[in-house]
């Protein structure tokens, strides 16, 4: 398959992830959307690396995956602490700060 196919696939996944972030009410659900977006990045990177024969993309992917994990960990911790304080993880209820 040509590079374009992979890129398009990644773009689609990216868009779907974004859609998830925009529409899910549950904070955890939003996190999942972010995961999808980062996943798309990885597909892109690997595809580019494969088609250019360059190692950088692979390394980049490795780092991205690790960073993602760190992000998710922190994100989930925030969700938990929010839940503890606010008794909800519905993002729509989190509007103490506005204006």
């Amino acid at each position, binding site marked *: 398959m040509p590079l374009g196919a992979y890129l398009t696939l990644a773009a689609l996944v990216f868009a779907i992830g974004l859609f998830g972030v925009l529409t899910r009410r549950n904070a955890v659900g939003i996190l999942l959307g972010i995961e999808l977006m980062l996943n798309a990045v990885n597909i892109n990177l690997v595809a580019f690396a494969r088609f250019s024969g360059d190692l950088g993309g692979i390394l980049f992917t490795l780092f991205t995956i690790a960073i993602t994990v760190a992000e998710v960990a922190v994100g989930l911790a925030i969700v938990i602490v929010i839940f503890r304080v606010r008794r909800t993880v519905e993002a729509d209820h*989190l509007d103490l700060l506005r204006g």
Partner: protein
Amino acid sequence: MRVGSAAVALVVLGLPFASFLLLALVRPLRRSAVAAATVSITVMVAAVVAAFWLSWRARPLELLQSPSTTWSWIPADGGPMATVGVMVDGKSMAMCMLVTFVSLMVQLYSWAYLHDEPRRSLGRYYAYHSLFAFSMLGLVLAPTFLQMFVFWELVGLCSYLLIGYWYDRPSAARAAVKAFWITKLGDLGFVAGIVMLWAAAGTFDFWELFRLAHTNGLPPAGMPLIMFLIYLGAVGKSAQFPLHIWLPDAMEGPTPVSALIHAATMVTAGVFLVNRAFPLFMLVPDVLTLIAWVGAFTALLAATMACVENDIKRVLAYSTVSQLGYMMAAAGASAPDAGFAHLLTHGVFKALLFLGAGIVIHVFHTNDVFRMGGLGGQPWLWVPFVLATLALAGVPPLPGFFTKEAILGGVFEAHLTIPFVMLAVTAFLTAFYMFRVVFLAFFARGLGDSHAHHHVPPLMSGVCWTLAALSVATGVNLARQMLAGAHHEGAPAWLPAFSLGLAGAGIVLAWAMYRRGAIDPARVATVLAPLDWAARRGYGIDAVFAGLYRGALLGFSRVVGWVDRYVVDGLLNVFSAWTLRAGDRLRRLQTGLPQDYVYGVALGALILFVLAQWRMK
């Protein structure tokens, strides 16, 4: 033509100014009435001496030599833009003598007249007087239009200050402002005119301008407008129709002030202006004709109003307006010398009239002629006044007869028939209304008897007698000249008799109505009801001006003020409020919902994508 010494002229000019400075700046002097009056009068005496000396030592002028001496006033790159100096020709020397002399007389008279005034403010009075003398002398000595305008406005200022001398009186305060405004209205034309003349000729200097006029160096196209505008200045200052309305009100000032400023000197500045600039006016015959018409009309109009006026000072004021009309008409009829002569003689006897009126006012404490009378037994009071009245009415051998006759002759010669008729009627009316005053104020029985032996300070009557003597002397002198054959060439021979007849008729009518009682004034008034009604109301001209002021000016200003506050500034406030509101609106984008923030990021990214796409192409 004769020219005087510039140095002496400067002395004449400088003396009253020094006196003014002294009185204005040295507070103890100002607060002490005696010292102030002494300084002012002493200086004035010196000025009179200097003025006469100036005239005495004048020498003949060589052909094409300028009678003016000037110094730079407003510098500019290529030589001064405006100059100041003195122009000492026959006219200005004569005016100097008139001004200083009458000023001296009035100042002396005032000392007695204003004896009851608070001492503290007399210093102010004399300071104003000195300033006035300085300004008036500056005006007559001015060698340039600009300098003339400067002093022109300064005499206006003095007039304003002196009319409002009793500023506690609302009417005085109002009259002062009115005088200033109305004359200023004319001065707008004056200043515009001289500026335009400057633009056309490149100079303000009379002598230069005359030379240019002589050599056709002035652009003919703009001249009528320019000269008309300059004439407007004279209209305001010399109380020509329709700007005459300030002069009767100006009588709110102390009577000596009226005598000096609003009769003898300042108001004649307009006439002097036309005379001074006559070589330029000669270029514009249409404007001259207009001047003649307006002058004659003013003369007649004022005379009719004088006939129905009961306030002695206002009668004299209308008479002044009327006589100024005469002088202007003379100038308009290309007989400026006649007008100028009338100016000089009128200056003396009109001052006398006012000062005489001041005496009766002093005696009766009223201005109303119907509440006076019974002074027939005191000739030292009425003789000077009656002499002056006769002079004004035009009875020989008093000076008014000769100068007035010369004016009539000049107008007749210029084939200005209707103005001539108007002036003739005015001559008749003048005799009538003046003798109306004489009969009522001095010789009526009854009302005023209780005051009949009121003490009149000798200083006041002394001044009056001096002026009367001067007037008679002038008249005799003129009569001598006439008999010696200096009669105006070309004027019809019947004119003196006609003129005398008019005066006689007026006197007789007045006698018949107010002395003899043969004709009931009330019946005459009924017969001429519409005229009487209109004349008593000043023909509504005052009302028109008041309406324009209130309705047009103040009303419009209120509209502008409102527009500025609520529209111009309002728009600014709208912009400010919009900015604040925009901030508030935008702030609401910040909903506080986490995902809306992500929308922001996504939208922002999208916009950047689109922008980059668009840039790539």
